[in-house]
């Protein structure tokens, strides 16, 4: 297999970091769902969000493979803060989603490929919708305090 040019190799690194974040989100929502702390309505939303993170992971895995890179494997488990209530779970999920949206904002700026920038832009949008939904579920202001990224 020929070696990737440096910019594309850098893109692979960025995408692999994004994949790792998606994998952590997928695992975390799965763990949250198993706690039985979520009401059915919130659980339904969480499961829908998991499905979307899985879509993101698949999209990036495809792109990394196209670039002859090797996508990372998901860990068996990830660290979690104490999650004793639904609110604890929602707050932690919110922090992950904010991190994801802001990471994609950063990734988008660093990627060299326009196609990959576009994918990153669309996923950043989706993570932002998760932030809105989780914020509103927590009774927090469901939109950013600033008119610009990053999300706070």
């Amino acid at each position, binding site marked *: 297999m020929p070696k990737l040019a440096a910019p594309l190799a850098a893109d692979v690194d960025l995408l692999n970091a994004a994949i790792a974040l998606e994998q952590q989100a997928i695992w975390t929502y799965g763990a949250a769902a198993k706690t039985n702390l979520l*009401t059915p*309505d*919130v659980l*339904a*939303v969480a499961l*829908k*969000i998991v*499905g*979307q993170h899985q*879509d*993101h992971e698949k*999209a990036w895995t495809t792109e990394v493979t196209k670039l002859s890179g090797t996508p990372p494997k998901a860990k068996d488990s990830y660290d979690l803060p104490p999650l004793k209530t639904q609110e604890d779970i929602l707050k932690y999920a*919110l*922090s992950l989603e*904010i991190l994801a*949206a802001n990471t994609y*904002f950063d990734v*988008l*700026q660093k990627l060299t490929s*326009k196609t990959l*920038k*576009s*994918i990153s*832009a*669309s*996923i*950043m*949008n*989706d993570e*932002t*919708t*998760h*932030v*809105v*939904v989780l*914020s*509103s*579920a*927590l*009774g*927090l*202001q*469901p*939109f*950013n*305090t600033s*008119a*610009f*990224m990053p*999300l*706070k």
Partner: protein
Amino acid sequence: MENPGKTGFSRRSFIKKSAAAAGAVALISMSSPAFVLGKELTMQASGDLDVANFEYGLEALAIAAYQAAAKTGLLDKPVLDIALKFVDQHVAHQKAWEAEVTRLGGKPQALAIGKYPDLKSQGDILAFAKTLEEVAVGSYFIAIQKFQDASRVNIAASIMPIEMEHVTVYAAALKQDPIPSSFPTGTSEADIGKIATALMIGPAPAATGGGAPTTAPASGIGGGNKQDDYSGVVIGTLAAIGAAAAGALALRKNNQTQTADKE
């Protein structure tokens, strides 16, 4: 708050004033060269300038539309509070593009709606606002691909998720699925053109407006995305969103340092 609208703004008078411009320019697209809206902009047909000016114009249009909506008296207090907060954000975006257009040697050109759809209820307004915000998301998604200069790509990328938040809040308020897609990209370029035609969007009229007759109005505005039934979900109700927003705004008014931080 900055008020870029005309004095004495009302939907009817605005339609009358903008009729000439809107009637003359019913086609709008971000594809060069059709992207440009009129002679003045055509003369400055450099890529980044056109896109930046389009975004400036769209933000101006959104601000005017929100102000028109606020004056209808149809919005409940929590919804109005949110709308006004969104106006602030659009004003900040407009200023960012004004700076870019000026930096590129251009003259900022506001866009305006020539023909509003019938807005008879809060629901009508929310659906219309969602349509405009989806157009904004779509335009920024396209802009990210079109801008040549990396710093302008970053500005567009920095604004787009904020517009996405607006879309999501409206979707929830309308009891639509607030997370309908894993890869949301807003309104497509082709549909932006259709919406612009239906709303008779064109350059905002100068202070002295004309009164020329309009062309026959197009129809079909206001569809937005297909909605899932999300009524069983406790989150995303307008009451919850409104209360959260109102609470946060009140907090901010009382104490500048005490904003509703999510963390």
